[in-house]
């Protein structure tokens, strides 16, 4: 029995949860002896107060769109893909291998190839947990956690022994060819004659992320596969009754999920670092969980939540640059958002449901 109108479910509840998370974050800032108002001002100024700020805000947003969509697609199939981090770092490996060892004539071709490489490696890293879940009943949450660690070990090994250029002290690959540099907001604006910040922040992959939102929406709500994924996610028994193969859906949903997570690497590895470094993901795989939860697994919601987290991330980075508030503040905000929009959802929802019930009766 629906007691709440849909708008309350998709807008009101997340907003209240977000408000609670932010309110508690403000208390945390107060508790460590800082001024929340000033902190918020600094964050706004640093993230959306300048072209540079926007550049980085959108750069982080791009990451979070990819990982948020990754988690969302898996959520639709009722799979909790906690392995976005590992899949994204493997995606980075894929991008790096494609760009380091194969020649490409132009950045557009290179980008396309890198997308394939990143998505393929990310998908591959999701494939094994998916297969184990579907075929052997291994809990996908545990396997993807384990695969995050295994990915870290693998990447560590590759960067320490295989990809590291001789004589380098950095556990990082060589730089990619400069001809693969992606057009950035900065370079585009400069071409237009607008003086912009010089950096490698937001680049064309942002547009690809937006495209990914559209494609995921089309996939989930306009294709047979999406229909089957959602059906499977809502009821595995019903899906089986309808002749939808659990193995197929689990594997395909996780391949798409892992592929999306892997695609993030074109932004971080190809776009920003222009080489493969350790920890290029920077926790974006985990933020994807918060983004998907907040965005109710809908691409529009994911986009908005990713923007919010992009803002928090860039603002938080600024905060830690100019104040003594550590960037871990953002980790706390992220934790609180996951807590309130995910685990404590009922705490927010139940009183609101009661309220609507009372209104309907009254």
């Amino acid at each position, binding site marked *: 029995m*629906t007691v709440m109108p849909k708008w309350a479910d998709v807008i009101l509840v997340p907003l209240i949860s977000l408000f609670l998370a932010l309110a508690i974050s403000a208390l945390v800032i107060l508790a460590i002896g800082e001024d929340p108002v000033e902190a918020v001002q600094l964050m706004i100024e640093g993230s959306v107060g300048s072209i540079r700020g926007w550049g980085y805000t959108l750069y982080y947003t791009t990451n979070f769109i990819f990982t948020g969509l990754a988690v969302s697609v898996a959520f639709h199939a009722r799979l909790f893909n906690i392995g976005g981090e590992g899949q994204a770092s493997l995606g980075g490996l894929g991008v790096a291998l494609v760009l380091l060892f194969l020649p490409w004539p132009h950045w557009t071709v290179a980008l396309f190839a890198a997308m394939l490489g990143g998505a393929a490696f990310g998908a591959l890293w999701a494939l094994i947990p998916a297969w184990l879940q579907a075929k052997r009943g291994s809990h996908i949450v545990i396997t993807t956690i384990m695969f995050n660690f295994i990915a870290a070990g693998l990447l560590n090994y590759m960067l320490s022994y295989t990809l590291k250029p001789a004589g380098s002290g950095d556990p990082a690959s060589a730089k990619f060819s400069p001809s693969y540099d992606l057009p950035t907001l900065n370079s585009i604006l400069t071409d237009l004659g607008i003086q912009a910040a010089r950096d490698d922040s937001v680049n064309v992959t942002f547009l690809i992320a937006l495209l990914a939102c559209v494609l995921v929406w*089309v996939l989930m709500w306009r294709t*047979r596969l999406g229909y089957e994924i959602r059906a499977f996610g*809502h*009821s595995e028994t019903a899906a*089986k009754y309808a*002749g939808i193969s659990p193995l197929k859906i689990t594997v395909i949903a996780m391949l798409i999920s892992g592929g999306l997570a892997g695609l993030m690497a074109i932004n971080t590895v190809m776009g920003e670092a222009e080489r493969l470094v350790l920890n290029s993901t920077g926790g974006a795989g985990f933020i994807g969980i918060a983004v998907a939860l907040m965005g109710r697994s809908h691409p529009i919601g994911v986009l908005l939540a990713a923007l919010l987290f992009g803002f928090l991330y860039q603002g938080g980075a600024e905060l830690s640059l100019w104040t003594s508030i550590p960037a871990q503040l953002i980790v706390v905000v992220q934790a609180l958002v996951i807590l309130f929009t995910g685990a404590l959802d009922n705490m927010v929802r139940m009183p609101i449901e009661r309220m609507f019930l009372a209104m309907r009766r009254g």
Partner: protein
Amino acid sequence: MTELAIELRGISKAFGPVQANKDISIQVTKGTIHGIIGENGAGKSTLMSILYGFYKADRGDILIDGKLTAIPDSQAAIAAGIGMVFQHFKLVENFTVLENIVLGAEDGPWLAPSLSKARKELKSLAEEYELNVDPDAVIENIGVGMQQRVEILKALYRQADILILDEPTGVLTPAEADHLFRILRNLKAEGKTIILITHKLREIMDVTDTVSVMRRGEMTATVKTADTSPTELAELMVGRKVLLRVEKTPATPGAKILEVRDLRVVDEKGVERLRGIDLDIHAGEILGIAGVAGSGQSELLEVLGGYRNGHGKIVMNGQSIDLTGARSDGQSRRARGIAHVPEDRQREGLIMDFHAWENVAFGYHHQDEYQRSALLMNNRALRQDAEGKIERFDVRPANCWQAAKNFSGGNQQKIVLAREIERNPDLLLIGQPTRGVDIGAIEFIHQQIVALRDAGKAILLVSVELEEILGLADRIAVMFDGRIMGERMAGTTDERELGMLMAGMTGDAA
């Protein structure tokens, strides 16, 4: 002497917007068996759960032995001498019988003394009431009848004077049910009070002293069993005159549609659920499968519907059907003209969170008319199709944007039926067509099934309601323990004969 064991006064309980119990009052005399009868969803279980402290009533008083007693939780109910055997047993599957009995009734913080005391107690209880169980057997390894005894023992071990049994015979064979009723009479003789919740009229007439009837959350009547009749009770349950028989003409079976030979199924736990089934179904007939729940009829439906793998031979319209592998699933069965209304529509037949229009295509979503292009689905076509089906099957409310979970049980079933029947299948598999469906919808559903038969289609009907099988089917096969015990023509058999077969007695003995 009419001392009251229980008196409920003005009990009300709502779950969210649903009013499950409305101002219910009831008096249960000590040392009697008191039946509570009503349709599914009438509020019987809720009422008893309140009495057992499982739920808290919004309003109303409970009197035990004439004293006003607050029952905030099950602990209080147990302390007040109430024991309850739930429809779905509340046993820890990988614990032993002994551990299950001791759980919650331990003597002290250490386990060993409790267990040895319970072992002795169990022995004397078993002798007293004919309730033999092996105390060291693990629950998941014993049968349902045995598990039910454990539940009763659990209550007796807690010195219950009042025993509530919720639909206790749903999973029992008639013989097991008879044994249960013998036990209940023994308990009554010992001075225990028993409340029996059921929707089966026969049980009420057989075993109870008094019967209360519930309908839509309200108590409509309480009468002495001796002073009433099944017809009267049925009318009280439903609230109007009921046609207990389905109106249909005799069948005119045509060509053989489905042939099943030596069909075998082994389930996930390695238990053989079907042990060689042979069946034929012809066009224009309804074959009913009778049997106690768990006799293999679910598995039969599932194999035929492509939900589960099996071994053996199935020939449909002269062509054999794959029972394993990629071409053995719901989709390929539908392609062969087999439609399937599953037993559990909420778990299998519908996606409860999907809109009605999405559900109307469920399982057929890959069909050409629903596609816009190779990649995209045509949602508009889906909705148009859904609107037509909703109208023709009188689904209420006629709103294709409403989520399936927000329709009543009957309307949910109509959505499933509309989807499956309008595909014009050669064979319709239909399981528990009217479980949890209100009486008005039952008639409609039965009419649809008969109409499909009259259109020359083959129908395989599985139901645990013997009455429904007898009324609807033309031919009846009875299953027991994964085998078909015998086949009877509906017109020439009766409940007693089928009951013997359901209990595993061969046709000759019956």
